[in-house]
């Protein structure tokens, strides 16, 4: 009898059945098949740390097309998805291979439309952060003290100005740039651990992952470890993403390679340094994809193919946080 008033496609409808179900654990194959569709806007976040590479590879294996990829630092995994023909539009604030040289496919796509053009929306880092904040908070825009005098607004019409309704410090009217929200169809993040319901705990650099999940209609969390409910509940402040925002939990140890997972394995700096040469040659890049992505059934096979000796080289020693006491009523 009661029909809640919601507009079609409005964010209110994101509270869909299944969100709160007790067990969201599934395979990467099933998660990508169910939640990443051709034409989707896909956010992959993780700022140098916890980059969801395993998910990117599965998107490649499943041959997704015409994706809009949203990622602050478009780095190796984006270059790979570009090379596999998954991506027609990129929204980013840094398109480079960290400090280790260029992304070959990205540069060919942008500089020479080779093999096809790439629509590119250029922001700054905080502009991207604010787009996620606006998306997560269902705001029409988010203000930030950037872009004044930059050429970026001339190539990105989404960067606009708003007049503050309050006088500035000098009593005069004050203008400020704003960015629009981004609401990905699906956000994929990698994290250290989650429980089966999707309560997700991250430590070390936490970046903008929580906001990227909250901004999205659907969310896949890939983890190094699935843990018992008790582990999560022993430290609720560590939960960056609560279960009600998560649709699928995928266990993929070492799934952030070549990036790192704080406390689990270190960054594969050699691979970052090797990427410019691999990606600089389209034939070599195709071979790399054939061997390492199409040639592996899933991330477990990819990780195994790298070999235990390789992983021993990225192993880290233990540095445990101390506990805190949450207390219990006597």
């Amino acid at each position, binding site marked *: 009898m009661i029909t809640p*008033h919601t507009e079609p496609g409005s964010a209110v409808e*994101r509270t869909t059945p299944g969100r709160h179900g007790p067990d969201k654990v599934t395979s990467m194959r099933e998660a990508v098949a169910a939640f990443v569709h051709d034409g989707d806007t896909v956010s992959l976040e993780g700022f140098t740390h916890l980059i969801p590479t395993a998910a990117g590879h599965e998107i490649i294996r499943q041959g997704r097309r015409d994706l809009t990829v949203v990622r602050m630092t478009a780095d190796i995994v984006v270059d790979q998805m570009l090379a596999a023909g998954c991506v027609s539009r990129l929204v980013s604030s840094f398109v480079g291979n960290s400090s280790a040289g260029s992304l070959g496919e990205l540069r060919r796509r942008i500089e020479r439309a080779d093999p096809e053009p790439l629509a590119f929306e250029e922001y700054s880092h905080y502009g991207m952060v604010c787009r996620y904040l606006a998306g997560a908070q269902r705001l029409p825009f988010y203000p930030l003290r950037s872009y004044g005098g930059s050429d970026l607004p001339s190539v990105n019409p989404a960067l606009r100005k708003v007049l503050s309704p309050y006088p500035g410090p000098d009593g005069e009217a004050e203008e400020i740039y704003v960015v629009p929200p981004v609401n990905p169809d699906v956000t994929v993040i990698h994290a250290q651990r989650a429980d089966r*319901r999707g309560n997700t705990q991250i430590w070390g650099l936490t970046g903008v992952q*929580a906001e990227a999940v*909250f901004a999205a209609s659907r969310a896949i969390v890939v983890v190094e470890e699935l843990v018992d409910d008790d582990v999560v509940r022993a430290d609720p402040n560590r939960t960056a993403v609560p279960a*009600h925002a998560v649709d699928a939990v995928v266990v993929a140890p070492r799934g952030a390679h070549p990036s790192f997972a704080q406390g689990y394995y270190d960054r594969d700096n050699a691979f970052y340094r090797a990427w410019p040469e691999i990606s600089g040659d389209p034939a070599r890049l195709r071979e790399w994809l054939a061997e390492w992505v199409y040639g592996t059934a899933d991330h477990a096979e990819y990780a195994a193919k790298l070999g235990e000796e390789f992983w021993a080289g990225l192993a880290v020693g233990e540095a445990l946080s101390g506990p805190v006491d949450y207390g219990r009523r006597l």
Partner: protein
Amino acid sequence: MSGTEAERGDGRGSGPGAPVTSAELLAVVASRELASRRAVFAGIGLPTLATELARLTVAPDIEVVYESGVCGAHPSHLPETIADAVLITGAEAVLPMPALFGSVLQGGRIDVGFLGAAQIDRWGGLNTSVIGRWDRPSVRLPGSGGAVEVMANAREVFVVMRRHTPRSFAEALDFCTTPGPERALADGVRPLGAGVTRVVTELGVLARDGVGDELRLVAVHPGVTVEQVRAATGWDLRTAGTVATVEPPGEAELRLLREEVDPRRVYLR
């Protein structure tokens, strides 16, 4: 903190065959309205009873989100405030306030918000600020807390009002702290939820469908007449076709409420 917290009960016992108290009645009726709801934003007191009972009956996947930042609480004791330490220890997540209000509530992830008020009008507008004039009130009430945000952002809002009088169900609010969506629209601001869809009182249940609809009487408790409810309401209360009679709390519901949910009768006064 949204005006929905109750004081402590007096702890008196209540056997299985004891008469149904007003609190029990309200809790049971409210719990039924939560069928299949998942994310509920609630204060402490009657909403605690209603949501806990709903979890054991019609809404097994229900999750209460507290304004204080707690999601997925697993309290060892019945909480006495929305920030009770027992809600934090063992919880699934504790979020900072900007994330809770910004990403969870305003982000549109709450199905039902529970609110209370000193006054409610026919559109579900609420007054929790003042009795009298705002700048020189006869009674200064606590104010909004998060009620303005719950109303603007929850998919729908349930109101529990113990007292049903013409002063509390007012033709005109002394002050509209927390408006329904009609007033938001008139102010040029898009309403994001339906506003108040259910009001459970000591006399019956009022409901409205969404924007443009006013609260109508849909059910009365056994022994209460439509005329009694209309006389206790400050506006010309209309009915929704035939007015049903509320099914009295069943034995199973009462047992769960009394033995599982609140055996110490903290809120079941």
